[in-house]
């Protein structure tokens, strides 16, 4: 028992070392980003004919309630050259009808390009007017399959994947495209910040007022998102070992996606898998590249507020990690893949996949040791204190980075709530997530469960 507790302590020391390093790198990277972001050179190019064209891909499955508002919001993005491609992935509700009616779409003859594979397209619709909009109606094949269809139909330099139920800020596309202008040959993918929209006032696909959610579960997720994006992804970007560009908001070079064969279908984490694959392809070919997380363009998404949907989401995410690690197992601890093979993927394996098991067994073993009198109550209390303090340290670090760049929640009351929940997550929430993530091991060989949840929707009623 004591030996296992030493093992858990060693695991924790490794966890602290890696995450502190990533946090420190995040601070350096953010400083660099803020310093370079001021340059007008790139903004000038963004408003010039040299700006890369973008196709915003919106996969939609049974999104009748919010799809029209989402598309309207996307049509008002501040970017000079973009089109929107909505891919209806065999919806069984009125998604298609709502879009046809709202945007005056009509069926058009459009051959299906063969660049990446996907299920058959049933029809293509285009507006009668001059809107840069295309609606593709295809057989149901999942999000990855829908995105592949969008990639095929896109005639642009870049493709941007967004969720149909997310809300992008107006300048999000411009900010996310800047790295492609900064280093056009090397940059192959960029991702922006995804924030929890619960609590915000959103009208007709636009965020009118930013506020923290009232729901406890949503608040815990606010803390998680800030930590994941500011303390983690920014740090991995500094090492060029970023392993995920969120499916809710990611920008990719279209030619690279086509060369990679598009998104992989049959996995629940196509966004994670494609990034691992892009790393593998580029590093195997010895091609200079970078995958960048850009901290301030924001996409708002609705977080699950009930245990039912949160559990489903987290089991799916964990399953996605397992699948990606399995698909790319040859990269793990392989020096050929640099920081991705030696640090990022092993970290994912040890801390994300095995971490919940080690931590939960650590709780069981230390409680047993306490009960058997093998350790004293002081040691037990110190054990818990270390865990809580480190969580608080990382969250504080992330909030400090957030404050020094974005500062979306400037009120002291907001800070107090975020820190309260950062401490509070150690008292049950974190353990609950671990249990769900452990459950995902048993789910690997079953049919994937998709995270469709009952959405409250963003649109406020028209006054």
């Amino acid at each position, binding site marked *: 028992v*004591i030996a296992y507790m030493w093992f858990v302590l060693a695991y924790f020391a490794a966890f602290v070392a890696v995450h502190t390093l990533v946090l420190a790198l995040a601070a350096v990277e953010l400083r660099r980003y803020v310093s370079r972001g001021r340059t007008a050179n790139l903004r000038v190019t963004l408003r010039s004919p*040299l700006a890369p064209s973008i196709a915003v891909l919106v996969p939609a499955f049974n999104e009748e309630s919010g799809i029209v508002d989402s598309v309207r919001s996307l049509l008002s993005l501040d970017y000079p050259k973009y089109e929107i491609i909505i891919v209806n992935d065999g919806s069984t509700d009125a998604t298609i009808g709502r879009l046809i009616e709202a945007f005056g779409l009509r069926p058009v003859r459009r051959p299906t390009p063969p660049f990446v594979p996907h299920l058959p397209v049933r029809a293509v619709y285009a507006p009668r007017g001059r809107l840069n909009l295309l609606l593709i109606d295809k057989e149901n094949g999942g999000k990855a399959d829908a995105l592949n269809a969008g990639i095929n139909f896109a005639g642009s330099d870049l493709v941007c994947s967004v969720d149909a139920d997310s809300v992008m800020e107006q300048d999000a596309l411009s900010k996310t495209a800047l790295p492609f202008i900064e280093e056009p040959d090397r940059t192959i993918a960029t991702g922006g910040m995804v924030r929890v929209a619960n609590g915000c006032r959103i009208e007709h696909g636009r965020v009118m007022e930013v506020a923290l959610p009232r729901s406890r579960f949503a608040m815990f997720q606010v803390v998680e998102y800030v930590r994941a994006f500011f303390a983690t992804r920014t740090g991995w970007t500094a090492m060029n070992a970023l392993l995920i560009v969120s499916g809710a908001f990611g920008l990719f070079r279209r030619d690279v996606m086509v060369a990679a064969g598009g998104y992989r279908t049959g996995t629940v984490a196509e966004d994670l898998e494609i990034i691992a694959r892009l790393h593998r392809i580029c590093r195997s070919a010895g091609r200079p590249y970078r995958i960048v997380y850009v901290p301030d363009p924001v996409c708002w998404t609705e977080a699950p507020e009930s245990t039912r949907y949160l559990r489903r989401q987290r089991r799916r995410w964990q399953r996605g990690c397992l699948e990606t690690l399995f698909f790319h197992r040859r990269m793990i601890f392989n020096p050929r893949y640099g920081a991705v093979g030696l640090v990022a993927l092993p970290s994912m394996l040890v801390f994300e996949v095995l971490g919940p098991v080690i931590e939960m067994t650590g709780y069981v073993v230390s409680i047993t040791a306490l009960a058997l009198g093998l350790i004293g109550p002081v040691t037990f209390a*110190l054990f818990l204190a270390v865990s809580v303090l480190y969580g608080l340290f990382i969250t504080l670090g992330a909030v400090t980075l957030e404050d020094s760049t974005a500062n979306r929640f400037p009120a002291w009351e907001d800070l107090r709530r975020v820190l309260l929940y950062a401490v509070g997550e150690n008292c049950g929430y974190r353990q609950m997530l671990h249990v769900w993530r452990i459950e995902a091991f048993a789910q690997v060989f079953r049919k994937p469960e998709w995270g469709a949840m009952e959405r409250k929707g963003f649109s406020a009623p028209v006054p």
Partner: protein
Amino acid sequence: MSSALAIAVAVLATAVILLAVSLTAIRVRIRRQRRRQRRYGPGASRGIARYLAGAGDPPRPAGRVERAIFRDVALAALTDLRGSEREELTALLGQLGYFDEAQAALTAHRRSVRRRAAEMLALAGTAPLAPALVTGLSDRDPLVRTSCARTLAQAGAEDVIPEVTATAAQDIESAPGAAAAVVLALGNSHPAALTPMLRAGAAAPVREVALEVAGRLRLAELSPSLRACLHDGDDLAATAAEGLGLIGDIEAAGALRDLASDHGRALAARTAAVTALGSIGDPASVPLLEPLLESGDWPIRAAAARALGKLGEPGAAVLRRAAWSARPEVREQAEAVLQP
């Protein structure tokens, strides 16, 4: 174990306290900045607006904070203003000594200060600042160099074009996006300055950017240089073909037809040539494009159909015949272009 844990708790508690103090300090600073912004910002905006409308005396911001806020408000306004209002505001900033400060800051030790100064001068973009900007061309930082180079190019300082061109070539590897902005500025103000960049002796990345700028800005005077690039490597040839199509250079049609029918060239280069033939609108290309409708390569087939769709009645006649083809992949391309 207890002692190891106690040390860890002590270290972590110290780190948490330090972070909490830093976070508080950052928040206090941000709140103070916002308070100052609320205090001086609206006044600065009103002062500038009244001055530009000829309804008031020139604003005279006093004190370090007020001056800094006035500068930020004025620079934000400069990005939106054009014509005489822009010139008046630039002159006002000059009178208030901001450009003198920026010129002096160009020699500062801190890179961030030099970058900010270069940005300020870049936004002003006036010829009298040229000497300071030329100094900036030899800065250690590529972003400072390229900001100065772009401003010089925009300001129309013809005597320093060789230095500006050299800066773009120097920084194309370390700061490709910023160097491209310099080439873009040259393309807008001195198109002829791009000619040496398009020559065979120039570095490939510089040629690539210059070709793209020449095409996207539709600089017809550079067509001969673009035509010469059609015989280069596939990447350069594709960019040149795209540019010639955008320019609509009828004299390039022959060379583009050669490129489109050269099966030894990369698909991207051939596709770009086919697309350009359509954009140029030369009906003599129809006999070449008709067999390409049956190409085994989807991009060539699609580009040929779209090009034929732009070539008037001769092209439309070919597409109508193709719409009856026994091959569905040919039929669907033709039908897609023919639909109203």
